[in-house]
């Protein structure tokens, strides 16, 4: 049963990264576009994402609930020692959600749109950066996990672990990854005349992902961050990342041939590979602190709780997944064949 819960945990994480990630990324694309293309992106995003927008962002709630029910000690470490970046993530999520509804549901489309648009774009950039930073801090080796709070000062315990080069670089990497996902999504949804806009964006985003990814690894290697040195040493994880890199070539081909489904599938596989490699490096140890490591499986709740959680997830999944699939199909977000 524990493995069913772990499966749902990873599954929700993956879906959140891909679905919400593409949505965050679209806001970033908009932020770095010319005025004319900003409106184009806004419209396209709304057309593609509108019906599933709310659903995409619920994966994080599922993720949090699985963590606190199934792995309370693990979640406890995150919520105590990464309080500040998580609060900043929440700030971003709130601003972004509100800006999204405001800009699409305001009865009058007047100057107030400018404000909503900027709120949306800026929070689209900030939220994934802090999300990535939070994940970066978990593996940065700087997290001091302790019960004796008097022995350390505020900065050492609550700021330094996330406000450091490595964590912030991971944050930037995640934002770049979101932008990459969004531009691939937008290429498939735009009219023939506008495609080049997103193809250029996709090229830049890919360069950013590869570039920042490379810097993260170099930085980690130079500063001897355990996670990074182990990541490079492990043939499986390194292989995953290299494979993800190689897939760029077929991706470029499929974009050239305007194969919407193939290119999205490739981009999805690339992100999955990166995520899987990162999780696998030390699995089940997912927090590598300064003084302690936290093993996800060892922090699991008693068996009875896990069993009930697994059953709830299976029932929930049986209701939700077909519904979600049907929703995507009805609004032609999934096409079985390339057109």
């Amino acid at each position, binding site marked *: 049963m524990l493995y069913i819960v772990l499966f749902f945990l990873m599954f929700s994480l993956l879906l959140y990264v891909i679905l919400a990630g593409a949505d965050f990324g679209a806001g970033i694309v908009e932020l770095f576009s010319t005025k004319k293309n900003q409106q184009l992106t806004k419209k396209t995003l709304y057309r593609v994402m509108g019906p599933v927008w*709310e659903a995409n962002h619920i994966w994080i709630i599922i993720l949090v609930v699985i963590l*606190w*029910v199934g792995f309370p000690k693990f979640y406890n470490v995150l919520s105590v020692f990464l309080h500040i970046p998580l609060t900043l993530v*929440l700030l971003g999520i*709130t*601003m972004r959600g509100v800006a999204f509804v405001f800009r699409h549901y305001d009865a009058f489309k007047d100057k107030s749109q400018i404000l909503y648009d900027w709120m949306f774009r800026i929070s689209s950039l900030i939220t994934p950066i802090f999300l990535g930073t939070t994940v970066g801090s978990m593996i940065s080796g700087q997290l001091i996990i302790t019960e004796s709070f008097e022995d350390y000062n505020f900065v050492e315990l609550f700021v330094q672990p996330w406000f450091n080069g490595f964590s912030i670089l991971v944050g930037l990497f995640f934002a770049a990854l979101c932008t990459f996902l969004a531009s691939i999504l937008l290429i498939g949804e735009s009219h023939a005349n506008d495609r080049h806009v997103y193809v250029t964006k996709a090229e830049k985003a890919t360069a950013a992902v590869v570039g920042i990814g490379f810097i993260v690894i170099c930085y980690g290697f130079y500063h001897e961050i355990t996670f990074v040195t182990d990541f490079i040493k492990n043939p499986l994880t390194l292989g995953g990342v290299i494979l993800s890199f190689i897939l760029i070539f077929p991706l470029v081909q499929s974009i050239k041939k305007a194969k919407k489904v193939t290119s999205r599938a490739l981009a999805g596989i690339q992100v999955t590979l990166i995520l899987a490699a990162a999780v696998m490096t030390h699995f089940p140890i997912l927090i590598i602190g300064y003084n302690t490591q936290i093993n996800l499986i060892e922090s699991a709740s008693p068996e*009875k709780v896990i069993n009930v*959680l697994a059953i709830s997830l299976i029932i929930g999944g049986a209701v*939700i997944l077909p519904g979600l699939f049907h929703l995507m199909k009805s609004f032609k977000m999934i096409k079985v064949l390339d057109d």
Partner: protein
Amino acid sequence: MDNLDAARLQMAFTLIFHIVFACVGMVMPFFMIVAHKKWLNTKDPVYLKLTKSWQKGVAIFFVVGAVSGTALSFELGLLWPEFMKHAGPIIGMPFSLEGAAFFVEAIALGFYLYGWDKIPEKFHWFTGVIVGVSGVASGILVVSANGWMNAPSGFDYINGEFVNIDPVQALLNPAWFTQALHMTLAAFTATGFAVAGIHAYQIYKRRHLDLHKKAFKIAITFGAVAAILQPISGDLSAKDIAERQPVKLAAMEAHYETKKGAPLLIGGIVNEETREVTHKIEIPKALSFLAFGDFDAEVKGLNDFPEDVHPNVPIVHYAFQIMVGIGTLLLLVGLLFFISLIKKSWWEKRKFWLLFALLGPFGFIALEAGWIVTEVGRQPWIIHNIMRTKDAVTPMPGMIYSFYMYMGLYGILTIAVTWLMMRQIKSLNHPYLK
């Protein structure tokens, strides 16, 4: 202000904000589907316009409710890590089921909002029903988790450890039913009166009478029925609390002296120093009857409980008075509405509409007051008789800054959403807009 107070204020503030959006998002779909059904049956375009307008309201409230709910799901851990570490696994079931119900609601809402002219008419309407039903289900599940904090069950507490956890028993804790019933009816009352109040004001201003009268009738019917049923649920809750949380009951009534045949206090000013209530109206023996169904039953007073388990008596007492007072008022006005269906001439009088317009916000005031009664009344416990709130708070100092940040953010959001809703209503009266 110390860390505990800042964390408690932040929690209170974010809940007070979220609860409004959650309730509207949960109840308004029902108004929407009734209007939608009337459009399908009568093909009167006014109902279509009304449905589409309400659907925008639902969408706005749903998203703001969803993001503030996401924030809350994190805040539980961020503010009360020690609580979540132990309680998380026990009350995981209502929360995971709530997550699922909420997800279903989001999917159904996707179908509903974007399904006009794209999916079959009847299926489209039915997705609206799912939005409403799953919304109410998630509300009930969240309240069940709160019920567990008042009536912890489904575990053994041995030497400071929570063992033999039974999540199903925790879900079906003794408080879940009374609390969920009371909350659901409160949500319908508050939203019904608020929406009806907005439309009543438009009628008072003599705008689009046809549309607003139709809207008023749908919303107030839900609100009035719920308001009339609420005292039954309130009675169940009172008896429940008398048995399980006698300190909370004593604080609600500012009842200091243990007495047989205890009177019910209406209003009054609490003097904590002298432990007396002045300027009150007393109904003899009524408290004993309401709490135990016996006019001569003994009701234990606050003086017989150790001081370190007393909640803040004035806050709980005043909040309770506000809730009951407004509840009674809305019940009477609800009856007035049903009489007006016979005495049709009332609908022509402006005073009638002014009354409903003025009462618009009162349901929500009562609802917030009710939450204050149950939450402040539970103090000093975060898990009744098991864990104190002060032992659950985050060890991270400086919570006051986090509180200021949330207060600023949610303050701005409140103003912004109000402004947005005013523009929605304005557009409804605009002849050139759809």
